[in-house]
């Protein structure tokens, strides 16, 4: 018999700072990742207020000016402030990551729930479709779709959303398979719950737990894909302050010595991807061992 009396902790209000310290102590990874992502989100939201210049504000006489007091990250080939553009670029990063992640979940989770719970032919069919989708190299497919349908933000989001949905479908499906024979699902059936309630009221909140870390990771991936597409000339183009597009432009100037045009957007990209990945890893730390520590 397990020692439940030790592990049961009644929830009483504690101080916020205590809570923050507690989480940071449990998973420094999460704390750092969270801090980075929040910082970028802050920048994305308040770009209008805090950026020194406009996103496409040109200073034709300061083209390619090195980083200094006037332009923290220097000016690019069009005389636009790299610093401000990097800040506005955060909007594009989130503007792609968040809708794409939402789409992945909207498609993947229900499919995973139904496939896992119903099993049989339905499961097989869903699995095969997911396999097909996953076997496409995402960049190539994204390239093809965007080239064919036009370089719009929506298309990029749609492609990423569809291509990554299978990941969540599989994750949710395996959680469902594990939960399907657990006591509370049996109870729910015995209680007379119709299937849709079993799937969405009982299974989903429990099954989705294992996917939260993956959401952060896929958001990082979404940002990278769209930057890659922009970089190779498909997808968003200059003068839109998207980091991939900025790196594309900046690549021309690296050889001639104006390193700042490409470096800073590149660093921002690395930064946000790192942030998301750390956040995801940290979430894993927090959710899993904590589950063990609180028993049951």
């Amino acid at each position, binding site marked *: *018999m397990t020692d*439940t009396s030790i592990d*049961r902790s*009644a*929830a009483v209000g504690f101080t916020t700072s205590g809570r923050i310290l507690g989480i940071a102590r449990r998973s420094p990874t999460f704390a750092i990742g969270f801090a980075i992502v929040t910082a970028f989100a802050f920048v994305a939201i308040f770009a209008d207020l805090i950026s020194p210049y406009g996103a496409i504000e040109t200073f034709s006489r300061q083209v390619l000016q090195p980083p200094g007091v006037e332009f923290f990250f220097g000016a690019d080939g069009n005389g636009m402030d790299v610093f401000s553009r990097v800040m506005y670029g955060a909007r594009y990063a989130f503007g792609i990551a968040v809708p794409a992640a939402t789409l992945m979940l909207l498609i993947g989770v229900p499919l995973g729930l139904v496939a896992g719970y119903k099993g049989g032919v339905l499961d097989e069919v869903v699995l095969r479709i997911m396999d097909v989708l996953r076997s496409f190299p995402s960049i190539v497919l994204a390239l093809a779709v965007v080239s064919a349908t036009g370089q719009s933000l929506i298309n990029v989001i749609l492609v990423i959303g569809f291509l990554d949905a299978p990941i969540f479908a599989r994750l949710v499906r395996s959680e469902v398979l594990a939960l399907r024979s*657990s*006591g*509370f699902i*049996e*109870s*729910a*059936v*015995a*209680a*007379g*719950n*119709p299937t849709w309630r079993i799937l969405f009221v*009982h299974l989903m*909140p*429990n099954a989705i737990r294992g996917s939260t870390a993956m959401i952060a990771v896929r958001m990082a991936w979404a940002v990278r894909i769209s930057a890659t597409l922009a970089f190779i000339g498909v997808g968003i183009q200059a003068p839109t302050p998207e980091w991939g597009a900025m790196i594309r432009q900046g690549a021309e100037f690296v050889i001639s010595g104006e390193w700042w045009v490409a470096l800073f957007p590149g660093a921002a990209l690395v930064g946000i991807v790192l942030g998301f990945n750390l956040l995801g890893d940290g979430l894993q730390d927090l959710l899993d061992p904590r589950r063990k520590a*609180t*028993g*049951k």
Partner: protein
Amino acid sequence: MVEPILQVRDLVKHFAGNRPGEIIHAVNKVSFDLNPGETLGLVGESGSGKSTIGRCVVRLYRPTAGSIRFGDRDISTISEGQMRPLRKEIQIVFQDPYSALNPRMKVGNLIGELVKLHSDLDAPARRERVTALAARVHLNADLLTRYPNELSGGQLQRVCIARALATNPKVIVLDEPTSSLDLSVRAGILELLGELQRETGVAMLFISHDLETVQLVSHRILVLYLGSVVEDGPAEAVFAKPAHPYAQALLSADLPPDPDVVLDRQILQGEVPGPVHLPPGCPFAPRCPLSREDCTRAMPPLASVGANHHAACVRIADGTNDIRSAHASTGGDIHKKFQDQFVRRTT
């Protein structure tokens, strides 16, 4: 003459085993009646099929064969969709309350769910009903806003009982309801069940391996071995004078918590074999100290040994069914053949 609320006839349940072609014979032609206001105790060890029978009755499993008549309807073959509205009449309480409840739902909502699913009450009316149910099972109303992991085993089992009661069912199946609870808490739960039965006249199928508990709560008992009924009768009669050799051995192996009781134990050899390869004839023959040639020919029919009391043993006819008279383990060859299996059971 009161009509039984539940009539089970020749219930069979087989599962596919791990290896291809393997069949687990969990329940093999079990028949019984359950009358309103009565508690029928299902007693047996692992592999007896008692839990499986309970789950078949609430249609968590679909019977392989046989019939389960609830009222005037045979529910053994109906679809899930047809069964759903009937679920308010036949409820179940599981052994482990912690794993039987969605850990992410508050206790009040867990009870309310049953009310919501089977009635048209609006939210305030539902809340009232939930509060009333909590009071009925002597559960502190404060606990309704908590999550399952914040309650003790005993409190949580009361939640499960409240859920089972919420729809005023006619039958409640209880699968080892006190086995995972601490000793000091069990009495309270049993008392509650007795109270509720007296109040509502609900019929109960009480499944347990704990003989003392079963004896306390049951009106009638079914003793099961490897999926077959070996003895059935009024609780007092079966406990006072068990007729079937297995029932005798089982009851004698019980350890009463009283050092002054002198034990008269008939220790059996070996263990319950796996339900995959059933011995021919009487399932208990390989281990029975009284087994003889005709035991393996066919499953012995239930013979009467008293008022409403039956046991399935060939030796009842000539009165030689008392295992205390067995001097050595007779049946030698039969024993050896089945001792060979130490196959691990799949429950």
